[in-house]
């Protein structure tokens, strides 16, 4: 298979472009996405190619945009609504939680909502408490929503294409730090089904489960652990709903130890839920308590130093993996 190196944002653009070309039902709306090409340049060039009816700028009115998207999806279109920051999606929570997520069940399966909300979250830009959150747990909690968190350009493309072909509401959560990252993307039709995790690095000693921007962090930690003689396996669920339990359980059965890394604050997070699934299924295969490395339970600070201190870093992951292996912390081990 041939590959090309693309940036995460270019891979997303390819997905939208290919699906818009393939299906006239696909359209995209959002703030500054048409003439400006989007704040993260994901939709650059699409206005010229598909015209203002299918690539449409909106006012700063998230509740209205999300309402339009959900309504259009119910009516049979395949809308993509781009929300600048996931924090702003809170304005449309009624449409997402009470309408989009419920419609299929309440219509006995006759009505479907093929609605894709594309947005980005995460800390790392010094953009403070209202522009830095990782809110996947809110959507994860609501039955009826799909929650997708790609960590690489190839996954971003493949998952977005799949999102635009299936028929349930999708929270497609990108990360502001990942747009400029590069990776190999397979040529031709590249689709990644939901519910299929991916082993980003194989290993036998401990499983690091991470998604979105924590995947690069976990991979860097695995690299450092390798130098210490510990072979960490990095598993990216890619979609939190549906969750690939089978692959998670298979990996942890093999390594006997799990470290779950989430950027979101710990309380009530997805990591806690994955942790409960693992312990329930694999209690007698675990050689150590499951470790969770998560953000602090505080609003993300504006100050860059404090911001960094409030979300997981590579060293936190390394330390947790060593704990899971009952090995001394690095400082002691070096002596």
């Amino acid at each position: 298979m041939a590959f090309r190196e693309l940036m995460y944002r270019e891979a997303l653009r390819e997905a939208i472009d290919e699906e818009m070309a393939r299906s006239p039902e696909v359209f995209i709306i959002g703030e500054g996405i048409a003439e400006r090409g989007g704040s993260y340049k994901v939709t650059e060039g699409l206005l010229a190619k598909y015209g203002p009816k299918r690539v449409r700028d909106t006012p700063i009115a998230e509740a209205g945009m999300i309402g339009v998207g959900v309504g259009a999806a119910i009516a049979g279109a395949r809308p993509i609504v781009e929300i600048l920051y996931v924090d702003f999606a809170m304005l449309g929570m009624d449409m997402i939680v009470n309408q989009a997520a419920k419609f299929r069940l309440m219509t006995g399966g006759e009505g479907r909502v093929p609605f894709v909300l594309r947005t980005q979250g995460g800390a790392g830009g010094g953009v403070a408490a209202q522009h830095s959150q990782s809110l996947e747990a809110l959507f994860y909690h609501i039955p009826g929503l799909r929650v997708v968190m790609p960590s690489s350009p190839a996954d971003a493309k493949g998952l977005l294409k799949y999102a635009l072909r299936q028929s349930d509401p999708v929270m497609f959560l990108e990360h502001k730090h990942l747009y400029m990252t590069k990776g190999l993307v397979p040529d031709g039709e590249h689709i990644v089904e939901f519910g299929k995790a991916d082993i980003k690095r194989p290993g036998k000693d401990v499983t690091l489960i991470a998604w979105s921007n924590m995947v690069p962090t976990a991979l860097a930690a695995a690299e450092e652990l390798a130098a210490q003689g510990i072979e960490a396996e990095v598993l990216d669920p890619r979609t939190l709903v549906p969750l690939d339990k089978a692959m998670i359980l298979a990996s942890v059965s093999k390594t006997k130890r799990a470290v779950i890394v989430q950027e979101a604050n710990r309380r009530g997070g997805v990591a806690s839920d994955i942790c409960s699934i693992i312990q329930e299924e694999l209690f007698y295969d675990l050689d150590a308590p499951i470790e969770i490395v998560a953000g602090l339970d505080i609003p993300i600070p504006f100050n860059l130093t404090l911001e960094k201190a409030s979300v997981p870093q590579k060293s936190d992951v390394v330390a947790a993996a060593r704990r899971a292996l009952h090995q001394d912390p690095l400082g002691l081990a070096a002596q």
Partner: protein
Amino acid sequence: MAQSILCPQVGQDLTEAKVVALHVKLGDMVKKGAIVAEVESEKASFEVEAFATGTVIALPYKVGDTATVLEPLVVLGTADEAKAAASAPAAAPKAMGAAAAAPSKASKVNAPRASERASDGVLRSSPLARRIASEAGIELATLAGTGPKGAVVLRDVESVIANGHANSQAAQNANGKGGLAIKSLKNGSGHPIVFIHGFGSDLSSWRPFVALLSIGNPMIGIDLPGHGGSVGATAKDFDQLVADVAASLLAAGHHRVHLVGHSLGAGVSAALTKIAGIDVRSLTLLAPAGLGARIDGDFVHGFLSATSESALARWMQQLVHTPKALPAAFVRATLSAREGGDLAAKQRQLANAVFEGSTQLFSVVDALHHYSGPCRVVVGRRDSVIPADHVENLPGHVAVHRLEAVGHLPQVEATELVSRLVAETVRAAG
């Protein structure tokens, strides 16, 4: 610095004792030797003596409570610490009206308890270690845990399996093929320190000593044939005794160890250095047997023949230079261990195998000539069981400590110094 008076081990393998009396209250000044409390087990009650002078700064238990053996019963400190403790509401609700002290001081008072958490006697293990051990038929209690709080984790079980756990099943059964009882005395990490008791004692006699030993290695005890949990085992001579100890240690996965032995156990420890497959990292020998020919045969005979507490006490006082140094609990524990069994007969059998009258039938001097690791010998100049001058037979590379006003039990009569020497010997091995 705060010192804890521990709830005594009131009988072999008892883990709890009821507090029936506390003779001190918070803030009391206590003199060394004073009786501070009384505890009782199902079999007997014991008076608890203060081993040091100080002010009572914490009383973790009330009269009527069930105390955990070898946990602090009374904590002594300085007058300052008493004030700090009084101002810390959790430690002493009835403040003595002292001015508030820095919280860090108050937390220091609690520190000894936290550091002893690993030695709380709770057997911890990971679910996986538990499952694998159970599948392999390995008794978890026989393993030294290297995980957090001394938990047995996968690597501990794997190392036993790798060392051929077929034998460890025999080791569980004291009547099996030379298998002897091995128990964890304290959890920790690193190479284990194996404590080998002297004639007539058992591994539980090490517990008070081990509780005070401030090094992080796991500590385990082994019961010699005819003693403690190995009462069903016998040895026909000294060589078999050593071979059985070696086989039991290896079967439990202890192939790299520090050894601390007392008297006959010290002789065994020294002889273990010649056994292939056991890597003795360091050797601390307390009042060792096997350095010379003589032993007080009358003592051995009298000790084994005594059936009353007063008679046994008379003989056991021969073990120490200062009769008061011998805790009454020692005598009662020895007597209660003999109750309703053939322990004394089994020990007589072993005595006949290694001693003949007042003669020791074995020597470990040659073994010590060849041993190249750190080795210390500690003897009391007033030892009336084995003459202290036997150390004159030792090679030059062995460090010898001759303690004044100490008899055959240096670990009891000079606990602090001996624990320091054990720690130094272990550390010297690197």
